[in-house]
């Protein structure tokens, strides 16, 4: 019998971690992620989750606890937002470089200065190049399911995974969520096998100084240079695409829910214009597509689910014969354009796709994004494209003069 409960996105993330029987959780509270680990702390205190909950003085220390615990073979979970994630930045690199399958729920929030507690995706986008897999969720069910999938992906490719979802829009909004059967989750997710077994009988120096060149160690073993290690991480992330897709497929078979592997589409087959986005703004775009269709414009949506590794091939396939692309996103790569728009264009270049790409920066610091506004923006872009304007960057609903 299915167990459906009405819960927030943060509860869904906590439930995902609980079902994966995480063994070590460390966190430092920050809005809007606080209630994820607050919920877990409660379970640990009541003995409902057999895990070590480690309280520390900062997010930087949170990630060092995660790195240490994961190194000795524990399944590790944490959650943070915005400045907390930025404070972890150095240790995010350390986690990925150590090839540890840590799962982090990033509850997306804008970044100061000035202070904002409200939602955009600047925090996780700013961590794009840390070597973490990034998955963006669009509803609370997907958050729970993605946390479970993330452990299987991470522990297979030995890369950490960031499960990103929009602060307040999802984190504090209640929706019906089906909680999967705990035993079925155990069947889906085999126990974590660390890539190196640490033992006092066989001590190791972990992450010692590594040189630019390859070098023979004291035992005569040829060790990688720094660059060779970096290539292994890049190769692992590139190779994780197949694992992500297969994991989604297996999950769908077992639990009946398919959130899309690398990306998902909505009414895209016969579309003349495709709206693209990540997370809740892409969900909003599906309503915008419906509105556009009511007005006689064949619109569809492409939701980028996995942002790193970037779904290069899937993006090319999705946009192959589309005359117009409109990208909506809640981040800005200062001095250029939205990060997603830039990445989509880069993927199309390799396939020789010449479709115009219009970029809308929207909803920064929690500014409301309504489906009607997305539809209107798409309409104005189509008019501009018809008039020959192939490229355009617009700040939606923003005073720009």
């Amino acid at each position: 019998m299915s167990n459906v409960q009405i819960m927030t996105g943060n509860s869904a993330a906590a439930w995902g971690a609980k079902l994966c029987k995480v063994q070590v959780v460390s966190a430092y509270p920050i809005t809007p992620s606080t209630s994820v680990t607050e919920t877990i702390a409660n379970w640990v205190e009541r003995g409902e989750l057999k895990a070590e909950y480690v309280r520390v003085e900062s997010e930087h220390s949170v990630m060092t606890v995660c790195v240490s615990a994961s190194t000795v073979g524990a399944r590790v979970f944490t959650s943070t937002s915005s400045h907390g994630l930025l404070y972890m930045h150095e240790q995010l690199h350390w986690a990925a470089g150590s090839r540890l399958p840590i799962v982090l729920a990033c509850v997306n929030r804008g970044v100061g200065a000035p202070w904002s507690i409200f939602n955009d995706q600047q925090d996780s986008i700013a961590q794009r190049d840390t070597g973490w897999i990034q998955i963006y969720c669009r509803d609370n069910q997907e958050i729970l399911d993605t946390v479970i999938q993330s452990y299987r992906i991470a522990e297979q490719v030995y890369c950490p995974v960031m499960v990103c979802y929009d602060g307040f829009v999802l984190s504090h909004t209640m929706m019906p969520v089906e909680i999967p059967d705990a035993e079925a989750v155990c069947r889906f997710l085999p126990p974590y096998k660390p890539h190196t077994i640490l033992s006092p009988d066989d001590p190791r120096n972990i992450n010692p100084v590594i040189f630019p060149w390859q070098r023979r160690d004291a035992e005569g073993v040829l060790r990688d240079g720094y660059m060779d290690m970096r290539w292994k991480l890049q190769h692992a992330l590139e190779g994780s695409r197949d694992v992500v897709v297969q994991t989604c497929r297996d999950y769908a078979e077992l639990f009946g829910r398919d959130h899309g592997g690398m990306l998902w589409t909505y009414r895209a087959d016969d579309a003349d214009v495709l709206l693209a986005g990540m997370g809740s703004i892409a969900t909003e775009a599906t309503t915008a597509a419906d509105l556009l269709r009511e007005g006689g414009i064949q619109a569809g949506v492409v939701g980028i689910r996995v942002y790193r590794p970037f779904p290069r091939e899937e993006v090319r396939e999705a946009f192959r014969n589309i005359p117009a692309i409109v990208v909506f996103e809640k981040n800005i790569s200062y001095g250029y354009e939205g990060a997603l728009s830039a990445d989509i264009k880069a993927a199309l270049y390799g396939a020789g796709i010449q479709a115009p790409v219009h970029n809308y920066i929207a909803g920064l610091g929690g500014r409301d994004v309504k489906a009607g506004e997305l539809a209107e923006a798409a309409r104005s872009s189509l008019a501009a494209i018809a008039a020959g304007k192939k490229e355009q960057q617009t700040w939606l609903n923003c005073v720009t003069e």
Partner: protein
Amino acid sequence: MEIKDDNISAMCRPAVGEAGKTGDWRDATPVIDHGKCIASVKNRPACYLCWLYCPEGIVKAGIPIQIDLTYCKGCGICAEECPARAITMVMHEEAKK
């Protein structure tokens, strides 16, 4: 056949000289005056502060003390800490020989 490291993260077994022969980084060389070193003078175990403070762990706390110049980087901490002023840092000692 060449033995290659197949680790996906950087790690190795602790061993003497695993970071290479770091003695060739050295400019100044510690030279011990055994007429001053307390262990040598008294012919029994003494302060061994050089052994305690050496960041490389290459001072052997014996009678007399010994410094492994294959790995000594020449930092001079032993000379600084010696209460008997028995260690002098000599620039380019090897070049003179």
